[in-house]
């Protein structure tokens, strides 16, 4: 059997595929963060909390209303996005004129509140949720058996990420968005309602977090704490990719998933830390991140 540094290549491929699956989560989450940062100039610390809400909502839908996975996949992100609108209108909109650090601090506090409340209501042991019937079983990739559900996750996230990218880079709506980021006053003067656009962007970013939450629900423990640990890693992803860069966050998310997958084979203890090491190194060489522009 061929080996690379003492690990059979077949096992290595399997780990890379799993890394890609994780990378998909990073990509969706960091995409949402990048959207919000680009438009609102706010570092959304509460992103992890909204991700958690997506997962918990899909559990609530199943346990209390008997709504299955497919409807949850549609409804939970929408509900989370609506909450995002509420948050933007009641809290964030007062912060656009002050230093962007306040946005970071406010969302940090918001995350504490949301997670605290959910923890009080649902405890920390987690809530049961299994993949839908149609995804039982695995695909034979030759070198590994990939559970069908994981394959589905990859498909959904890639489609979501690239359609978002397409909308922003290639449609008129995206053009308005990008223009409003550059010069909101001018865009407003052209008769476009910039505040509404900002609100909707935030809702979209938050909705992406909710979607990631629903996708994660069958695969990991649904618990109020699930977002806390993830969010810092995702921050690192966004920073490495370049804050506000759409394509940057998608490709960095996927890439880091792969790197993390490799770390899990060669030095598993450091698999959570390697991201930060890469981040420190990247920023030393390219201060604005891999895809960002220095401003």
């Amino acid at each position, binding site marked *: 059997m061929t080996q690379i540094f003492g690990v059979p290549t077949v096992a290595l491929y399997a780990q890379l595929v799993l890394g890609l699956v994780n990378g998909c989560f990073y990509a969706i989450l960091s995409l949402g963060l990048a959207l919000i940062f680009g438009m609102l100039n706010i570092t959304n610390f509460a992103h992890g909390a909204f991700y958690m809400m997506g997962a918990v909502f899909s559990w609530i839908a199943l346990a209390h209303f008997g709504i299955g996975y497919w409807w949850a996949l549609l409804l939970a992100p929408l509900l989370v996005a609506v909450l995002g609108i509420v948050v933007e209108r009641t809290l964030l909109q007062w912060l656009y004129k002050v230093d962007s650090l306040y946005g970071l601090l406010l969302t940090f506090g918001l995350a504490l509140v949301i997670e605290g409340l959910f923890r009080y209501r649902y405890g920390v042991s987690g809530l049961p949720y299994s993949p839908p019937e149609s995804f039982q079983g695995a695909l034979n990739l030759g070198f590994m058996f990939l559970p069908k*559900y994981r394959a589905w996750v990859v498909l959904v996230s890639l489609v979501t990420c690239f359609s978002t990218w397409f909308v922003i880079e290639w449609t008129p709506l995206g053009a308005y968005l990008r223009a409003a980021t550059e010069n909101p006053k001018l865009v407003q003067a052209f008769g476009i309602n910039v505040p509404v656009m900002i609100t909707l962007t935030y809702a979209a970013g938050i909705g992406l977090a909710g979607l990631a939450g629903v996708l994660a629900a069958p695969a990991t423990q649904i618990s109020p704490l699930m977002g806390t640990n993830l969010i810092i890693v995702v921050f690192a992803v966004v920073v490495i990719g370049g804050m506000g860069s759409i394509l940057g966050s998608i490709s960095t998310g996927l890439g880091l998933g792969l790197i993390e997958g490799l770390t899990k084979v060669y030095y598993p203890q450091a698999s959570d830390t390697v991201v930060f090491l890469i981040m420190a190194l990247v920023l030393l060489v390219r201060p604005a991140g891999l895809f960002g522009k220095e401003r």
Partner: protein
Amino acid sequence: MRPVPVRSMLRAFRLAWVNGEWVSVAWVGVLWTGTFLCCLTAVGHSQSKPAGKISGGVVKIGVLTDMSGVYSDNTGQGSIVAAQMAIDDFGGKVLGYPIELVSADHQNKPDIGANKAREWFDTQGVDVIVDGVNSAVAIASSKVANEKQRILIVSGAGSIRLTNEDCNPYTIHYAYDTYATGGATGRAIVQHGGTTWFFVAADYTFGHSMQEDTAKVVRAAGGQVLGSVFHPLNASDFSSYMLQAQSSGAKVIGLANAGGDTINAIKAASEFGINKKQMLAGLLVMINDIHALGLQATQGMFIADGFYWDMNDETRKFSKTFLAKAKKMPSMIHAAVYSSTLQYLKAVQATGTDAADAVVKKLKEMSLDDVFVKHGRIRGDGRMVHDYYLFQVKSPSESKYPWDYYKLIGTVPGDQAFQPLSESRCALVKK
């Protein structure tokens, strides 16, 4: 420093007031208020002198626990309920004196935990602290207990250091430790034919020592350890580690982790179908974890535990009462908190005092018998020795009623389950 110009200060005050220089006056005001608040918030009530045999005329029990963090489901509010049940079952009074319960959430911060313990002992006359989840908090509090010569009975934390390097006469380790929970599982599973092992362990002291202790026992029982992988604490995705475990070809995958990590590992195992071909052994899995995962994902798993609600009439009665109050079945920790509180009160009753030295002496002589423990005893190093059980998780079809999750596979007698006294590194039992 130059001499304090009192007179010019007074003049300055008057002038500032007259001129309406609010800023300066306000400064002093802010300083005053700050100082005042500083003192006020920190005021403690000095402890009253011992009245008779019972200090302060009341026996105070403190539940030091995690009510908001990762351990809160297996301890937390449930521990308070359990301690209160013990007090009620004892009759609410000992030697004619009232029993009082206080509790605090240490938020998993050792500063807060140790500070609370110190404050309780120093200013509130707390006689014994129970639960003490989170090993860093437990060890820190045990130092305080030793210094203040009061009793700490740890049920929530599992660090074996409590009865080894960090043992002291006033600390009792009541429920479980990494040696017992790993060792009992390891030996029993090897006897049931699980001879080759692979460990998925959390990369912190708890995971490492559990992995080592279990591996030792597995080898001693004639089994083989094929490998281990250490993952970071609170890892979000376990599929990679479980796949490594799968490709090792071991018959048993030992999960030397706890809480969310164990849950995620089991979820990944079930998703990849690993639990169909290999045996999963949860070295520290509590009933609430199984409840959270559901039987579909956990069926067939081996679990070592010190308590299960559905063992006999006594446990069922206790657990049903607990369920009504806490809205969940008691974990081993909850039962141990109940038991330790009850046994402490019995010892106070027997000695006729709440003086710590006498009570500890009595506790270490007594045979402990209640719903949690049968013929238990507390050793010189502070370890409470009790039987350990090996369970297998039922399949969904075997489960007949709510919370019907385990079937009993075997019992590990206490003296085999826990680290032998001869191996203890505790200074109290050095020959």
